[in-house]
């Protein structure tokens, strides 16, 4: 039923295709990348330090150290997706847990959790992420952790609202009437209804996370060199924007495609899994 609706949604299918392409690129990078992504070719830069433009020797040109851009983009997909999937996965788990706890706990716990999300909402996420990653010496795992710790808030709010509305529904009230315990109601009756939401956010959130990681790497506080990352490539090359625009154009397009893919997929899933069509 859901798949049928999904398969008729052209935008969602496009999203699925884009995600699959990026995923394949990342997984098959060792086999399909034409060169070692970290090898600095002596003929990759001119004697005055100018990179090679796209051509036959290097399909998408070279970067400012004479490395093959195409190979770096393919390997860069790994860092991007790794951070995207892991950070967002953690954020969704925290968000679902805290959102459900907040919604179920009528007393102090619920209030505390939701007030805590209020506090988190008062912070500009990006600013805080930049400050945190810069202050804690940046690495791939710090970036993942920081993004996860900031991104759960939105999920928690959605889940919270959903739990509140589920709580009032007949089947939960029925379970309560027969004396089922709180945790039993949570696991048997509420959690299954939250899975579609978690799935939707699992996809939508990757789009946001990929953007956030790229931004941090662009500012130099994300994934560290020489590990290839799309934001990092743009960071290293932005001073050559006017003379070597491809070094900014191609990695940017890669980020755009990945983020777009997961956003379209997520929206498609939402429409397919939510029969009422409401958000």
């Amino acid at each position, binding site marked *: 039923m859901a798949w049928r609706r999904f398969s008729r949604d052209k935008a969602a299918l496009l999203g699925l295709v884009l995600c699959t392409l990026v995923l394949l690129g990342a997984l098959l990078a060792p086999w399909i990348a034409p060169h070692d992504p970290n090898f600095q070719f002596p003929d990759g830069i001119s004697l005055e330090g100018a990179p090679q433009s796209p051509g036959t020797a290097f399909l998408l040109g070279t970067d400012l150290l004479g490395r093959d851009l195409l190979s770096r983009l393919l390997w860069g997909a790994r860092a991007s997706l790794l951070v995207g999937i892991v950070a967002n996965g953690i954020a969704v788990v925290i968000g679902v847990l805290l959102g459900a706890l907040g919604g179920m706990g009528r007393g102090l716990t619920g209030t505390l959790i939701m007030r805590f999300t209020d506090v988190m909402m*008062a912070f500009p996420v990006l600013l805080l992420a930049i400050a945190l990653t810069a*202050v804690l010496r940046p690495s791939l795992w710090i970036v993942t952790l920081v993004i996860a710790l900031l991104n759960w808030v939105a999920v928690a709010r959605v889940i919270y609202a959903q739990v509140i509305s589920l709580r009032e529904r007949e089947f939960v009230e029925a379970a309560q009437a027969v004396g089922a315990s709180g945790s039993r109601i949570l696991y048997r009756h509420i959690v299954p209804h939250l899975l579609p939401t978690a799935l939707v956010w699992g996809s939508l959130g990757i789009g946001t996370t990929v953007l956030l990681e790229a931004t941090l790497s662009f500012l130099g506080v994300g994934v560290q060199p020489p590990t290839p990352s799309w934001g990092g490539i743009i960071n290293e090359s932005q001073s050559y924007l006017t003379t070597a625009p491809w070094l900014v154009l191609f990695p940017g397009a890669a980020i755009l495609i990945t983020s777009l893919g997961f956003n379209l997929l997520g929206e498609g899933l939402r429409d397919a899994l939510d029969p009422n069509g409401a958000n």
Partner: protein
Amino acid sequence: MLTFTVSRVLQSLGVLLVASVFTFSLIFLLPADPARLVAGPSASVQTVNSIRRELGLDRPFVAQYALYLTNLLRGDLGRSYKQQTAVRPLIASRVWPTFQLMLGAIALELLLGLPLGIWAALRRGRWPDQLVMGFAFLGASAPQFWLGLSLVYLLAYGLNLFPLGGYGGLSHLFLPALTLGLGGAGWYARVIRSSLLEVLTRDYVRTARAKGLPQSRVVVRHALRNAAPPIISMIGLDIGVFMGGVVVVESVFGWPGLGRLVWDAIRVVDIPVIVGVVIFSAVVITLANLLADVVQLALDPRIRYS
């Protein structure tokens, strides 16, 4: 309404208090010695020690936080480690450029988002609708720093239509404001589209149309009024998103606002400036959301807050 406002204000103050604890803890996450940062690399160990005592950095967290909070309540945000000046005037001198940038971005969001949203709703399911939805998705997926660099390359460097960067009048403002607001414009278009679609199916609108009222009047009188509250709360939320976005946009365009200030501070680990800007942002975001809620309530008394 008064009770609501008062309780929201109190709630916001609580949020800000906790937020200040969080932000202040940044200093304790720092792997480097703040006293050494103040003293500079070539200062002697004695100098570093005397600075540590002077700033109270040798005291426990609670004592340091209490001191910070009392100063904060008096409007004293401390002194920058690197710039030889206090944090408050530093922030004050950057507020206006950032405000201009945000205002420009909101204006562009509305100017682009409103017509596109209306157009998409009126041509639902046809190519304009798909085009606008495509634009919304692209806007939400494009990295801001890349968008900014691309706009600079194409419009400023390539076509020479705008300055390449720097602070100045409207021509300087346009590209950074567009970079900041383009993603939001798509979002506005989507929200306006769906709120319009909902209204257009309502009975009174159908009646109005059946009576032969021109479509533009219908849209303006009924549909847009319905879309106003969500737009106001979106502007409130936008302020929060922008507070992060300006870091990227201002550093790409060399705009002398809060974003550049905090980014420069981050690069040299100037903790008082970082903490100051984060707390200031938290205040602005909380105020913006508070204001949005109150305005919404005033506009539409039907909305009930629990």
